[in-house]
Each structure stands twice: as C-alpha cells, then as structure tokens.
C-alpha cells in the first residue's frame, strides 16, 4: 500500500530522480575529513533555531513593558516545556555561530573559496553577515540589562564615522544610529522593528541564502582535503550513503554535546545580568558584546583612534569577503602550502586571542596585546597575496 502511494507520487514528482542525482549518484572525494561535517551541523543548527523560534513567538510579547515578563515568566515558568525550547534557542544561537565560524575556518584551511567556488564563498559570507545581524537583533528581545545596554553600545558604533576628518561633518554615523533605533533612544520602536527583523526578514533572507549556498555546493562540487579536484566520472564515492552516514554519526555527537550545554550548562548562554530587567538609568558592571563579535570589538577597542578602529574592523569583514581574489596561487589546500599553513595558524590564533582579550578588562597591556593580534589578523590578509605570488612564480618556473 505504502509502496503504491510512493509510486503514485514518484510518477508525478520524480523525487526518485532528484534523490539519485543529488544524493546517491552525486560523487564526492573519498577522503573528506571531520571538519567537512561542520556544514551539515550548521544546517541542522539553523533548522533547530527556526523550529524553536516559531514556538517562542507564540508566547513572546514585543512590548517594552511585557517582553521581560513574557520571557522570564510565561516562557521560563508558565507554559510547559517552553523553558526547554528557550534554552535550546539560546544555546542553539551560540552553537550555530560557533559551527559557522568553524565552517569558515575549514573553508579557509582547505582553500574552498578558490575557482570555481568563489561565489559559494561570497554567498557564505552573506550568510555569515545576515546571521550576525539575526543574532544582534535577537539579543535585544529578552529586554534584560545586557540586551538593552548591548544595543546601546552597538548603536553607538556607527557614530565612529563622525570622528573622521572631513566626512565626519556630515554626521552620517549619527544618522545611521538614529535610523537603527528609530529615534534617539532604544524604546518600543526599536524593540518592535528588531522583533520583526529577527523573526521575519532576516530568517527568510537566511533561508534563501542557505538554499543558494547549498545549490552552489552541488554545482561546483566539494573540494578535496588534499587540494586535488576529482574526476567525477572515474573516482569519488556516492554522497549517500558514504558521506551522509558518516556525517550523520558526527552530527549525533554534535547534538549530544549541544544537549549537554542545553541541560547542564546554560550559565554562559543565559547570563546572570540578563535576568535583570532593562533599566535605562543603570549600566551593568560587566558589559561586552557576545563572544562571536568580541574579536571585532577588541580590534575596535585596541586602536586608539575611534574612526580608525571602526575602519579596521570593517576592513577585516571586507577582506574576508574578497579572500578568493587575494589568493591567486595555483596551489590548493593548506596541506600542500606550508607558508599558507603558517599564515592560517597566525589567523586562527590571533582571532581567538582577540576574542579572549575582549572578555578581559580594558587595561593598557591588553590594548597593546590587542594591537599585536590585530596586526596578526591583517598579516594574514597581506601575507596571502604575497605567498600566492611566490607560489605562482615557483609554479611558472617549473613550467606549469
């Protein structure tokens, strides 16, 4: 019976064909390493956010007088199991970003941004950017002290443009800040628009971009860890069941770790200060952006000039976007490029150091350290074209 229904549907939808072309006949390199699984983990993390998010909107009230109570009373205490759904959503946001960061670094390590995958990388960058916006808008919604003051500080960052020499007179930064908040202060208007953006526009955008990203991955094929493109007709293993089951097993491990945090270690994802309702007249003692923005924040904070700091952290984002065009070496994957490997280690260590510096007090030593690691990050982006040039010369000398 079920078989006949399935056949009836397949005669009309040709889903079997789709499955064949995309899963069981689709060939990928056999030697994919563990970090390749971060992609599927990110996809699952996104799905978790969407489902839990939809349930949270049923009880959340985007009203400055009621938002805090709707989260901390209705959701956390009143409605059965909503505490779990909120904890999954809160921890899920952090895990989503963590996995996306790991996915990005994996992409850099294996040079997955190189031709013909530049567009995949650019779309991925857009996903990352929209994801940061989604996280930022969502952070305001519980209307706790950290939500409120985090946004106060964030909305001040564009005003850095106004301390620039000439264009500062135009007050562009202030205009951006006012438009972000919908006024001079963070209030009902801000909460309302952030709610709308967080639950509708940004997730829809994200969904579209993720689908396009996945399509591009299929179109261009998956890189191989050793940097050699496979000939799909002669080699490679079928995506299903070879990769699906392998990454499925990794995914289960990821979920086990994730649920450990959800059930037993929420203190970082639901920080104590955010259980304090927003109070525009009192700043909490410890205030720093969430960890996924801390590296940029430390760059911004370490550079003594406000405008230059602003330029520096935006430059990092832009350099990340144009990375495919900075790296024009004929070689692929850090496995074959010892110089690139060294630069990669410099990048990852610097970014981590910047993030951790962001959690510390802003002392002079920390500012100097921040400056050093900022240079480390920029050294990567300057180093990549240089070593590309060296490698290109070697390649040509060998008669490539």
């Amino acid at each position, binding site marked *: 019976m079920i078989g006949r229904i399935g056949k009836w549907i397949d005669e009309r939808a040709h889903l079997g064909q789709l499955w064949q072309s995309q899963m069981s006949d689709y060939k990928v390199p056999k030697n994919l390493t*563990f970090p390749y699984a971060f992609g599927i983990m990110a996809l699952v993390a996104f799905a978790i956010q969407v489902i839990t998010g939809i349930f949270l909107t049923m009880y959340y009230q985007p*009203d400055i*007088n*009621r938002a*805090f*109570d709707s989260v*901390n*009373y209705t959701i956390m*205490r009143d409605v059965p199991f909503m*505490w*779990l759904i909120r904890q999954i959503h809160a921890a899920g946001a*952090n895990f989503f970003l*963590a996995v996306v960061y*790991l996915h990005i670094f994996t992409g850099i390590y294996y040079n997955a941004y190189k031709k013909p995958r530049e567009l995949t990388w650019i779309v991925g960058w857009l996903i990352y950017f929209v994801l940061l916006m989604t996280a930022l808008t969502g952070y305001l919604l519980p209307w706790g002290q950290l939500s409120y003051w985090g946004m106060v500080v964030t909305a001040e960052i564009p005003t850095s443009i106004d301390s620039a020499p000439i264009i500062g007179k135009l007050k562009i930064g202030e205009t951006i800040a006012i438009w972000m908040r919908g006024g001079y202060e963070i209030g009902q208007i801000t909460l309302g628009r952030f709610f709308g953006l967080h639950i509708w526009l940004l997730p829809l955008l994200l969904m579209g971009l993720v689908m396009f990203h996945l399509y591009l991955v299929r179109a261009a094929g998956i890189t191989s860890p050793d940097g050699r493109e496979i000939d799909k007709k002669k080699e490679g*293993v*079928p995506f299903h*069941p*070879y990769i699906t*089951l*392998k990454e*499925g*097993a*990794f*995914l*289960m*491990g990821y*979920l*086990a770790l994730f*649920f*450990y*945090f*959800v*059930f*037993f*270690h929420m203190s*970082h994802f639901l920080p*104590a*200060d955010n*259980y*304090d*309702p927003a109070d525009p*007249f009192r700043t909490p003692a*410890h205030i720093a952006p969430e*960890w996924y923005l801390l590296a940029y924040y430390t760059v911004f904070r370490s550079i003594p000039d406000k405008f230059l700091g602003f330029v520096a952290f935006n430059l990092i984002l832009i350099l990340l976007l144009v990375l495919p065009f900075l790296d024009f070496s004929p070689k692929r994957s850090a496995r074959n490029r010892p110089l690139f490997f060294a630069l990669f280690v410099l990048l*990852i*260590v610097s970014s*981590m150091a910047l*993030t*951790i510096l962001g*959690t*510390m*007090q802003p002392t002079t030593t920390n500012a100097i350290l921040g400056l050093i690691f900022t240079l480390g990050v920029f050294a990567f982006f300057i180093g990549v074209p240089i070593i590309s040039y060296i490698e290109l010369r070697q390649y040509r000398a060998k008669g490539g």
Partner: protein
Amino acid sequence: MIKSVFFTLLIGGFFFILWIKNPFLHREVYEVPAQQAKIASDTTNHASEGKTLFQSYCQACHSVRYDGVYLSAIEANPKFADLKQQYGKLIPLDVYKSVFSEDLKALKDSFGKVPPDLSTMYLVKGQGYLYNYILNPNQVLPGTSMPKVIDDPTQTAKIVAYLKSVSEPAEREKEKRAMMGIGTIAYFTVMGFLIYIWRRGVLKRKGLL
C-alpha cells in the same frame, strides 16, 4: 595527525575558556558560612518560612511579582483584588505601574528609586551576594539606599532560600530535567555509534569500504 591534535586542542581550549571557565574574568566572591549556605540552598524545607519572613521584613519595599507577592501598600489598595482576579498572579507591568503609580511614587520619593522587584534577583546576584547584602547592605554596595533590616543570619538565609525558590525550578523539577538531559545525551551518543556501525555494514555490502 599532529595537526589534528593541535587544532582540536586549540578549538577545545578556546571554547572552554569562552563557555565554561574563563580564568581571565574576575568576579567578586561572597562567602556564606557553611551552616547558612545549607539553609539558603534548601528550598524544600525553608522557602515557606522564608516567605513569611520576607512578608514581615521586605514586603514594605520589595515585590516578588512572579510569586504574586506585591508591596504591602499595594496589596492593601482596594484596586488590587480586582486586578488580581482579572490577571491572576502576575499583573502586567504596564497595568501595575499605571494603576499603582501613587504608591510607587511614594516609595521613589523616600528611596530615590523604586526598590527592585525580586522575582529574578536570585538568578542575577546569586546566593553569596544576596546573603551578604541583606545582612550588610552598605558594606556590599556602598551608598545604597537600602537600610539594614535583619540581624539574624539564619533568618537571612531563609529569605535567600525563598528568593531561590521563586527564581529556580523546584528540586523535583530539577531532577526531572536532569534525567531528561541524561536521556537525550545518551540517545544521541548511542545513535551516533549505531549509525557508524551500520554504515560499515552498508558500505561493505556496496563494496565501498
């Protein structure tokens, strides 16, 4: 292989510092004597006593809205019963603020600000801070407008136990949640291994391994 170990340790260490224990983050530690700490943690036995103490010492200035405990002046207000009937335990903040604006203003005039609601205070400040602060407000937070109202350490601990009972799920509920957590983690671990073993079989049959 060395590279894998290096990156695993690097990433593991990074997230350990961020998410589990940050040695660079300095937080004040407030000591509670062992005997009082035991009372303050034991919500099952001391929360209801703590509530009575709260009502006699603290309710004049502090509400615990999530437990349906409002300022004494407001509970005496004739409008209060109607609102409670209409909304139940938790009167929405906007309604609360506008209906009882006079009572709240009276408090604001004498303390400089409306003393905070304590429904989630235990989650914000934790046991140590609350215990020490209630016993010696000015020592913990110099310049605070809160007067010292209690001398007895045991009574203070009981009030802390009450605040904990409002902020955190009850012990039985916590145990239930922990069991759910263990079950979920066990499920994914077993499932992961099962898929891995199953995969070997499937691949062998297809000649892929």
